[in-house]
């Protein structure tokens, strides 16, 4: 078992072992889960450090047969695109386990088993080099999400939310599954599910345009529903608002990135002509995410719904980066995926902490909490600032790259998106800070709050913030890894000639077509 296989295996093994834990040892379950996710996070950091930048192809590959007769393997490997996602997923998984200690006081064992299955599933999905496994592992999260919201969730709409989120996710999954199978069947016999081989096959023998034009929208809308593409986004804010903190962190932060990753890894490079045809529509739909959901977020009175809508809005930037089909845009999109994962987890974690203290997230009934909550309050201010794109956080770097990349193809959309990112985002984020943290304490609803005092309570938030800042100040740590892999994807999507023209215009002419992102930064 290499490092990567361990990252995926540990959560599952821990979940399996936990089945045999005695039920009366209530806190033991959380300790085991923390140990497992902590080990996963450390291994993921080690993987990220050991990853050799610039090498072509995948690293840390491992292969275990699943159904050889059909060419399906448990096949894991990392390249520049998913190494950052795995790091992000593992860190968020650890943070989600940590914050659940106070919130989950009932049936701990079941909760942590489900959480571990969720974490292992999504990490397996990111690491899979096999299209079947990529989908297979993602679906692990579906049932845990349903049960977690139903049993440990909050709010009056809990029951409705469980079914809404599950049905939307199944619709999205089934549509993308049909698309993936159709894609697989385009390859000549003997067929393979291996992503790398498939990409190679489709580069040499492109799929007929008519088929591409059918498969790409299946993937785009199937994955789009899973990523809460406007107008299929309504499940997300509601679901996250009703979910327990850890579930919202994992789902909004990590699991939602599955669809985006699928678009970047599978849909765009394997159906390039379909992509050229359909991505303009995606670019306009992403405005729905950025503007419409931004406005909706402005109107929210409930902090969780605000965060949920803003998280949907942020997905628009990733869509825009993918739609741009430029190296800078796609690299930026991956960077936003990592940054947003950390940020969404951080904000949901903080709002979960607040809810644990106040038992309400109605912003009209909050106010002046910063006095009592210096650590949590400061973390929240920083998170909100990151959310409206303040430089210094990884989100800024990613969003700026997306805008640079998208400018040429969609100047109109980009203008509105920039406005949406800076103005609308700032309005609701700053308003939330004013309502919750600043000002007078609400006279009707005086509460005494406990700040996160000890390291155990601070650790998850500090870890997420630190990662955001590290990638904010040194985005090159990520972009230098993403760039070579993204280049292969963008090349495949545009055909070589288009790329050279594209790059030559974006880049300094003297470089003769070679891209260097550092110039743009």
């Amino acid at each position: 078992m290499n490092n990567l296989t361990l990252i995926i295996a540990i959560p599952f093994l821990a979940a399996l072992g936990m089945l045999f834990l005695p039920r009366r040892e209530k806190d033991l379950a959380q300790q085991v889960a923390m140990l497992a996710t902590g080990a996963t996070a450390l291994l993921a950091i080690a993987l990220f450090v050991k990853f050799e930048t610039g090498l072509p192809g995948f690293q840390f590959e491992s292969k275990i047969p699943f159904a050889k007769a059909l060419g399906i393997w448990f096949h894991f490997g990392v390249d520049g695109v998913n190494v950052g996602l795995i790091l992000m997923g593992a860190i968020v998984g650890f943070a989600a386990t940590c914050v659940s200690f106070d919130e989950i006081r009932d049936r701990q064992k079941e909760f942590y088993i489900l959480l571990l299955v969720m974490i292992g599933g999504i990490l397996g999905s990111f690491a899979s080099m096999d299209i079947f496994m990529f989908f297979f592992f993602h679906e692990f999260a579906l049932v845990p999400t349903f049960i977690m919201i139903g049993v440990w969730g909050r709010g009056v709409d809990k029951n409705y939310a469980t079914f809404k989120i599950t049905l939307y996710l199944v619709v999205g999954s089934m549509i993308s599954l049909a698309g993936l199978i159709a894609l697989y069947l385009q390859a000549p016999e003997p067929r393979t599910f291996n992503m790398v081989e498939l990409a190679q096959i489709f580069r040499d023998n492109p799929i007929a345009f008519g088929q591409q034009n059918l498969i790409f929208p299946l993937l785009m809308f199937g994955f789009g529903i899973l990523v809460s593409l406007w107008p299929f986004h309504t499940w997300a804010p509601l679901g996250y608002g009703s979910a327990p903190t850890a579930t919202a962190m994992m789902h909004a932060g990590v699991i939602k990135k599955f669809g985006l990753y699928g678009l970047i890894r599978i849909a765009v490079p394997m159906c390039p002509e379909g992509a050229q045809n359909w991505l303009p529509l995606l670019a306009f739909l992403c405005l729905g995410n950025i503007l419409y959901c931004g406005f909706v977020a402005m109107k929210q009175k409930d902090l969780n719904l605000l965060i949920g809508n803003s998280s949907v809005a942020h997905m628009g930037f990733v869509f825009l980066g993918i739609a741009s089909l430029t190296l800078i845009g796609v690299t930026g999109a991956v960077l936003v995926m990592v940054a947003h994962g950390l940020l969404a987890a951080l904000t949901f974690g903080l709002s979960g902490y607040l809810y644990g203290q106040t038992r309400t997230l109605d912003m009209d009934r909050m106010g002046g909490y910063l006095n009592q909550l210096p650590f949590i309050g400061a973390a929240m201010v920083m998170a909100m600032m990151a959310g409206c794109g303040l430089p210094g956080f990884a989100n800024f770097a990613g969003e700026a790259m997306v805008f640079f990349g998208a400018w040429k193809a969609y100047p109109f959309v980009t203008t509105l998106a920039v406005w949406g990112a800076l103005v609308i985002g700032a309005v609701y984020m700053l308003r939330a800070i004013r309502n919750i943290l600043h000002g007078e304490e609400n006279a009707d609803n005086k509460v005494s709050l406990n700040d996160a005092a000890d390291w155990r309570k601070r650790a998850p938030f500090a870890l997420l913030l630190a990662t955001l800042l590290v990638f904010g100040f040194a985005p090159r740590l990520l972009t230098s890894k993403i760039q070579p892999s993204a280049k292969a994807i963008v090349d495949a999507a545009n055909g070589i000639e288009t790329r050279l023209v594209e790059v030559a215009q974006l880049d300094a002419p003297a470089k003769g077509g070679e891209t260097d992102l550092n110039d743009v930064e």
Partner: protein
Amino acid sequence: MNAGLTILEIAVVALGLGVMLLDLWTPTERKRELGLYAAVVVLGILGASFVLDLSGEAFGGMYVLDGMAMFFKRLTLFAMVVVLVMSVEVGDQLKSGIAEYYSLTLFAGAGMMFAASANNLAMLFVSLELITVTFYILVSAQRSQARSLEAGVKYLIIGALSSAVMVYGIALVFGIAGDLTFAGLAAKSAAHSGSLLFLLGVFFILLGLGFKVSSVPFQLWAPDVYQGGITPTSAFLAVGSKAAGFVLMLRLLFVAFPSIAQDWATLLAAISGITILYGNLGAIPQRNLKRLMGYSSIAHGGYLMMGVAAVSAAGQSATMVYLGGYTFTALAAFAVIAIVAKTVEGEDISSLAGLHRRSPVLALAMTLALISLTGLPPMAGFFGKFMLLKSVIHAAEANTAYYWLIAAAVFGVVVSVYYYFNVIRTIFFVEGNNDDAPIEISRPLSFSLFACVAGMLVLGLYPDAVVSFAIEAVGALG
């Protein structure tokens, strides 16, 4: 003659007769135990099927023992073990005749095993009648309950009708082609495919098989009969009877009438799609667990038809793998329903409320079974549905009518999430108003449940061996 090939069936029939005889000397209070001994012997026969090296033809080609036949025989034997253990558990619901119940279950199982090997229209009819006639009695075994008798009468009437239709079809086919063997028909069917009467005959035979697999338009009996019979009967109907119907359908369509199967692909796809929609939509308002499983079994019949409708080797192997997964899944679900219904005295969905407190093991087994029925990873149901979808999407490249079938299947899965997850919701979210006393599970039943869950997981997580076996078995069909 080569009758030695039928050793497995002979053993099962002998066991059935033996149970009947032993019944005479067994004191009443110990009669229930007979089922356990029978289950152990069937388990032994299942083991023997792996040890004995059997293959070939018997009775002048009427009976064939190939990979596919063996696959279905093993499934049937496994189902018989679980059904026998279940009937020991719920045996007190029968006022009398428990030993006859065991014998009839064994005879029905023997019929299913013969059906798996049927290579001749006469053999097909006889083995189907052996199944159907025994089920007339099994379904109405609770003689004192009106609901059970009603179910029996419904099953009898629709069953007799479909048998009549089928035998008429066989007569027409024999009259035109002058042959009953599948191999002979395969050679002659192309020549007669212009004859309307011949086609009508084939159509009638298929209609009769449609009754066994509860596909549209012969699906109406399933919910009533599932609800009316005692739980082991419903389980055996859902699993064994359906498997027998599908193995016959595969052989009939792809060995005897391959050219007609090609021509009728669109019709098969339509039946499959409508069955999926009927089963799934009908399941939405159900409150009774067994009735829900009845509709769910109609829907799964529709999914299994997808592989038949694809008219390809990939489709046939997908149907086999899906049936394997469905056997484990449905048996697990029915076993949980049987235990819960016995303890809580109700078959309503709400009787599962608070199950996760009363028995975490049952809650887990039921949840995994429901996930598998829905078709989500990592359970067997997902991999089966994946293979079925793959075969149909492949077929859609040549015939656009399949796009509707794909749409129906995808829609069906989404709808099924709603009603299966509603059961999961009841298990975990709804607190039972009855006591929290833990539910006792007998050792044989917990062993059967464990085997079912293991089967679901193996077929979902490591299907390599089964998939290779199915592909090989289908390849031998030619």
